[in-house]
């Protein structure tokens, strides 16, 4: 039985996790750690029971510590929370990339790393950040990746109970290896962001002075550029910690674009369209590969 969970960073994701735990009858105590004004709001919304300003003090007595900050901050926080952890407590996170933080956990916990740290990544979010957008149903139906440090070995005890809790709040738990996770996310999340950013930035360069012309673009354009409004502060950490996979995927896209540029007037372009159509044909919401839970 988990008696206490600490959530460090009670913004959109951390706050939503607190709300979801409460809504789904989690009986233990929830400690939050963030800036004072954020903690006040989190407490008022009942996302947390109690706020503590200092990260390492906030971990005391908890069975699970969730680092719900951007990746860079989480990497820094591991070292700070490690000394005050309970003997059987585990640390987990919600960051967008998993390899760099796994590497850091190995440095901090050494041999104990696979038992102490369980890297996680919920595939949920909104364009807006902050506790005021927190939503107890944010994770319902969303995939929640876990990337244990050694193969299939899940940390025992608190780790298993945490997984059970994630399922209880409606998340679909799926297991991957850290590097495989980063490669997958490069393709399904980071590359779409870079393409949207490149398109939006080019549009501003070409027609920025003539806003009305840009507004004449329809729904397709709005959809293609919607995520271009995402904050750099979040993507900086993602790109810094997943440079290899993103660069490899970008090269593939560049090759594809070069091929299309070369074949604008040939039937090769038709083959390209046909291949692209297969994405939707083979995609159905129930097909999620080897997802457990």
């Amino acid at each position, binding site marked *: 039985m988990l008696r206490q969970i600490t959530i460090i960073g009670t913004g959109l994701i951390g706050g939503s996790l607190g709300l979801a735990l409460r809504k789904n009858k989690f009986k233990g105590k929830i400690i939050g750690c963030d800036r004072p004004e954020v903690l006040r709001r989190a407490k008022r919304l009942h996302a947390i029971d109690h706020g503590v300003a200092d990260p390492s003090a906030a971990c005391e007595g908890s069975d699970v510590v969730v680092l719900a900050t951007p990746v860079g901050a989480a990497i820094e926080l591991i070292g700070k929370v490690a000394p005050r952890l309970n003997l059987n407590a585990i640390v987990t996170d919600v960051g967008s990339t998993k390899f760099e933080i796994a590497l850091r956990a190995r440095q901090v916990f050494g*041999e104990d790393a696979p038992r102490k740290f369980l890297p996680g990544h919920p595939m949920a979010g909104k364009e807006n950040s902050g506790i005021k957008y927190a939503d107890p149903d944010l994770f319902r139906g969303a995939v929640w990746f876990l990337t244990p440090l050694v193969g299939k070995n899940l940390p025992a005890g608190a780790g298993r109970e945490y997984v059970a809790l994630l399922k209880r709040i409606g998340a679909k738990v799926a297991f991957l290896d850290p590097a495989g996770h980063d490669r997958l996310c490069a393709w399904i999340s980071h590359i779409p962001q870079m393409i949207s950013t490149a398109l939006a930035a080019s549009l501003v360069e070409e027609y920025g002075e003539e806003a009305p012309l840009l507004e004449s673009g329809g729904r397709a354009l709005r959809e293609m550029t919607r995520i271009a409004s995402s904050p750099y502060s979040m993507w900086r950490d993602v790109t810094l910690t997943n440079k290899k996979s993103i660069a490899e995927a970008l090269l593939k896209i560049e090759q*594809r674009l070069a091929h299309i540029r070369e074949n604008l007037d040939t039937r090769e372009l038709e083959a390209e369209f046909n291949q692209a159509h297969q994405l939707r044909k083979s995609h159905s919401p129930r097909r999620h590969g080897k997802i457990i839970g």
Partner: protein
Amino acid sequence: MIVAMQETATEDQIQVVVEHLIDMGFSVHRTTGERQTILAAVGSRADFDTRNLEVLSGVMEVHRISAPYKLAGRSFRPQGTIIEFRNGLKVGGKEVVVMAGPCSVESREQLFTVAELIAKAGARALRGGAFKPRTSPYSFQGLGLEALKLLREAGDKYNMLVISEVMEISQIELMLPYVDILQVGARNMQNFNLLRELGKLKTPILLKRGIAATIEEVLLSAEYIMAGGNYNIICCERGIRTFETYTRNTLDICAIPVIHKLSHLPIASDPSHGTGRRDKVAPMARASVAAGADALLIEVHHNPDKALSDGAQSLYPQQFSELMDSLKMIAPAVGRTIA
């Protein structure tokens, strides 16, 4: 793959790594040094991400030592591949082989005129397209079988090998009696069905680099052919798409020494398609030989202004002859001769 353990790694940590590697399908060879343990993992898991080992406790460094291609890799034949033809001509040896001819075979008169001129200037292989699927259905589509017969006749008359492009599997059988080298065009570099069929032959293949392909991808395509048993492959740099728009493509001269380093296969250069402009062909041909190309592919037309395809990049016979003279001076500077 080599896994170097930290000096402080415990026996338990080493065992975890060994078990992980075995789980992943590798066989593991262990060297226990006085200070450090090194694990050599042998197996063919091209998709294995070495980073997953780096997160294990006690691991210091992980190095992948094998390229994703094996047969095409330099270590398969460290001395290099030399392809020898019936008439004694060798590609991949000390001699640089110049292959020339019109973009496409248009008529008997055209082909024999060009063939005689380039043979006199020193070309050792006659190139010419028989099938020309063009963008517009109204453009010249090539003479097909008729062209192949003409190429063979002209090649025999002037003692030149014959090279022509194969575009689909159905053409292979038709072409074999007439050509010495089958060329795979840039557009077909990743047509794996075609490559698989070519792997069943013994006829040498000239494999052109795709317009947006990396060097690794060219070698993987070569690997595809070699996996079927045909080791007679000449890679060919023909220009890639870059941000430069002045020339149609950017001839990647650097690919020549890189492929020589990574692979044992001979490499040719095609400055005609690589630049797309007549006045740039000779300088890039000279640069290719200086960079170590084993063969050149050059388009020559006796009347380029009236060529039915790619006239703008075809050399006049006189220009070709002058180019050959300069190549004969450049080759010795890099320890080669012109065949």
